[in-house]
């Protein structure tokens, strides 16, 4: 079966191709969402290796159950829902201590600490702006790190992924009121942590 171009093809249509067993459709879904899913999971567990494992588990689960996808929902919402479930289960199971943005506490050498550290970059700016942006970005990452995992998921879905409160409630399987409370508290905490920067 020849590979086809999926430019301008909706998620729902790519899913249909995947349901027909086309490998290129599976790869397209991974390509579209590997970074958002990995980023969400990483910001919750703060460990690259664990985040990769959990992201991999998420995609394997979703793609193996692609026939169960209901097209009336956004594919990304379904994907994030499974990613969130897997990550929360992992955090509950392991009671993982969140690691510093400077690197994993398990890193023995400075080299491995650098390898596990998060590097925040942005493009299209002057060197000074880039440096300031990078510093602020790292401060934000540190502030997110201090939030409870439930708050992290909600605030990232709201402000990074642009989901509505209703969609977040569906993804994290919590009542709408709880989601609003979590986001409100997360904003308050972020304001406190980042107070000195503004």
């Amino acid at each position, binding site marked *: 079966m020849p590979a086809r171009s999926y430019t301008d093809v909706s998620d729902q249509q790519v899913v249909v191709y995947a349901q027909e*067993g086309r*490998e290129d459709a*599976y*790869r397209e879904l*991974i*390509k579209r969402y*590997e*970074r*958002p899913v*990995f*980023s969400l999971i*990483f910001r919750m567990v703060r460990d690259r290796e664990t*985040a*990769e494992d959990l*992201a*991999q588990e998420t*995609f*394997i689960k979703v*793609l*193996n159950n*692609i026939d169960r996808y209901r097209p009336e929902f956004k594919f990304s919402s379904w994907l994030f829902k499974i990613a969130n479930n897997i990550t929360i289960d992992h955090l509950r199971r392991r009671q993982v201590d969140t690691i510093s943005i400077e690197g994993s506490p398990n890193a023995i050498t400075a080299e491995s600490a650098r390898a596990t550290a*998060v590097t*925040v*970059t*942005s493009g299209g700016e002057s060197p000074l702006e880039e440096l300031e*942006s990078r510093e*602020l*970005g790292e401060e*934000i*990452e540190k502030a997110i790190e201090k939030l409870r995992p439930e708050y992290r998921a909600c*605030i*990232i879905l*709201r*402000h*990074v992924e*642009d989901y*509505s409160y209703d969609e977040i409630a569906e993804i994290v399987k919590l009542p709408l009121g709880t989601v609003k409370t979590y986001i409100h508290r997360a*904003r308050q905490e*972020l*304001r406190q942590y*980042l107070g000195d920067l*503004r």
Partner: protein
Amino acid sequence: MIEHDFDEEFVPIAAELQRLPYLSPSRDFADRVIARVDRLQAAPARALPAPASRHLELHRGGQAVAPRRFSVIRATGRATAGVALIAAAAFMFFEVDLLTAILSAATTQYAFAIAAAGTQIGTVVLGAETIAYLQAGAVQAVILYMTLAVGLLSGYTAIRTAAHIAKRKAA
């Protein structure tokens, strides 16, 4: 862009959150995922012969015999016969008083009319010989046969159920 539902102090933080970059997993991430998608890994095996069915099959002359399908008419007929037999058995063993009372009252009041109509209808439906046999007082014998039929049906059902359970266990 999401609508602002937060106070002004959070605006710069919200802006920074939106600028947070996506992080990338390792380069071979997609390959590792694809390698573990069962549907895709199972695809080349399609050409292989299908695995033996886990269900027991009846073979005749080396070929599997297709299971008989329950037609609607047959099923309806069986259901009707079953209800009739159960009703007859209930009448015989438990003496349904209400039915008896209605029949008695009707028989008392309209005995002649019912007898005449019943005979005519019975003659048309069952035949003159059957009517004569019934009129000779063999109603009890008919009910006895019906009860035997219920027993046979129940026994047959029990055997089929036992065979089904045995098949499932064997599978």
